[in-house]
């Protein structure tokens, strides 16, 4: 439940993605660290495949040269050139066009690409967002590799290229939605795809036990939604010492005289059910009581 608490606090990273049905899904944006990690993973995969491909091409090329003469070697060169080109330009596009809309790196980090307007994720959006990598990544990279050792004007060019690439690399940090330039042009963003299983409804325990407890309306009205959620966490953890402490605090606040054989969990879950029933009844009438200070 710690993640749920963090989730509600971290409002800045929630993207207001509204579905065509008009419901805000409250998706979480992928943060810079996850994006960077996903990218490094992908880069490692590309690098690995490229190295393997080159080795294979050299070995097969030598073999083909021996077996078929020049044409054999040439075929390998064609395959290598095309493979390199496809890998460089269409690795990202290809994977993001699939149903999961994520490269293996993004998948590993629990990220996916989504359309910013909430509509369908279209092929041209994915193409645009990845064509921009040419500017963000490959051009600075080739400049860095190509002009390392110049002097005078050349070193100034190098410095400018460095500043240029720095602008693009850190671009996502300077906007709220963590868009890189490609996202901006493609109209996409990268969101998290959290998995959450349905946790037990804590009122299931409480509603049964509520028969044995007759709380007065005044006693039930002592708390608001925030305290209810804390109580829910406590019940879920079901740790004896915490249960005892919380039960005593609540009993004091609502003036409940506890019998000595009363079980802490029974008491707390019954109170949870009563409080939730009361707050939800008021919610139906449009009154949301945030916490105990809320009138």
């Amino acid at each position, binding site marked *: 439940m710690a993640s749920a608490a963090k989730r509600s606090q971290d409002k800045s990273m929630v993207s207001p993605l509204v579905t065509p049905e008009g419901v805000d899904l409250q*998706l979480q944006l992928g943060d810079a660290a996850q994006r960077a990690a996903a990218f490094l993973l992908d880069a490692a995969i590309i690098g690995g495949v490229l190295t393997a491909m080159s080795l294979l091409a050299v070995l097969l090329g030598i073999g083909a040269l021996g077996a078929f003469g020049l044409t054999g070697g040439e075929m390998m060169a064609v395959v290598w050139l095309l493979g390199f080109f496809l890998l460089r330009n269409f690795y990202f596009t290809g994977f993001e066009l699939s149903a999961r809309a994520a490269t293996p790196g993004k998948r590993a980090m629990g990220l996916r690409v989504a359309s910013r307007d909430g509509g369908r994720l279209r092929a041209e959006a994915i193409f*645009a967002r990845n064509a921009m*990598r040419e500017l963000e990544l490959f051009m600075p990279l080739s400049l860095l590799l190509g002009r390392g050792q110049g002097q005078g004007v050349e070193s100034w060019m190098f410095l400018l290229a460095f500043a240029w690439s720095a602008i693009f690399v850190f671009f996502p940090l300077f906007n709220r939605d963590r868009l890189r330039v490609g996202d901006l042009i493609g109209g996409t963003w990268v969101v998290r795809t959290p998995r959450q299983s349905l946790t037990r409804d804590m009122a299931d325990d409480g509603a049964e036990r509520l028969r044995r407890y007759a709380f007065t309306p005044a006693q039930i009205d002592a708390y608001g939604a925030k305290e209810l959620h804390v109580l829910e966490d406590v019940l879920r953890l079901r740790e004896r010492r915490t249960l005892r402490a919380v039960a005593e605090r609540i009993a004091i606040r609502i003036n409940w005289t506890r019998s000595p054989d009363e079980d802490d969990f029974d008491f707390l879950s019954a109170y949870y059910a009563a409080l939730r*029933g009361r707050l939800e009844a008021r919610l139906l009438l449009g009154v949301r009581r945030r916490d105990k200070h809320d009138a």
Partner: protein
Amino acid sequence: MSDIRLDPRLKSQRFRQEREADWRRLERLMDRVEKGSAAALTDDEILAIPVLYRSTLSALSVARATSLDRGLIAYLETLSSRAYFFVYGARGSLRANLAEFFAGGWPAAVKGLWRETLVSALLMTLGALAAAWLVGQEADWYYAFMPPEMSGGRDPAASTAALKATLAGKAESDGLSAFATFLFTHNAQIALLAFALGFAFCVPTALLVLYNGAVLGAFLTLFISRGLGVEAGGWLLIHGVTELFAVILAGAAGLKIGWAMAFPGEQRRLDAATSAGRQAATVMAGVVVMLFVAGLLEGFGRQLIADTAARYGVALVSAVIWGAYFYGPRREAARG
């Protein structure tokens, strides 16, 4: 309090219990879809997903308004998002996407960019004219425009006979496919760069197109000055019609983005950039295809067809085909 005595369950509890089976079913379907076995779903299941998705989404709205069960709301949010990505995700088979792209999306996008295409073509012509004038004044300018690795011995120092020899085709086909592949990948990379550079408010893209024109101008001037203009034209245009058109379109796509960034008009800057980016990206995907064709023409066509008249013929045919495909009338105004 009386109804609580009759049925101890809370309203939100009953709400959850009545619908939980549907949610579980959707969750199981999503588990299977995300494992990549969407093709394994039966028709009934595929039809059920949108219905389940909408009922889950409406349950989410209700739960947000009436329930204080945090676990339930978080679960519904996650489940709705997963189903949303399936229902509104990238869709359709690759073949259907490609068919749509070639039948309507691509030509429509190219047509939509006619203004930028015109500007881009003008820039290239300007570059060519400027270079032609400069090289005509002083032949040494040639070296300023033409990178040595590209000229391949075609420079003012070479004799006329040597220049003429470079224009001839080769009878044997050794190394042609590797050459064609190299040309294609190299040009496609440059075109993608020209597109991406448009982001910086058009300027780098415009410079790149200008420079491309300058190389062209310098090259042609050199050959015209030796009386080889017609042959050089055939040598260049057999693939050049396709390739130069592709470069012009790439420049146009870059200009489109840069212009939308600089002058978004009535839209917000971000929205303008996005809509321009998507249109330009469609054009760019096509440019890669064009450059592939150009690479084939350059690598095979030019080396195998040595006759200048035949080269001009191929150039003309390709010009007509591209022109009709992009700008010719269509039965319906298909929008991509």
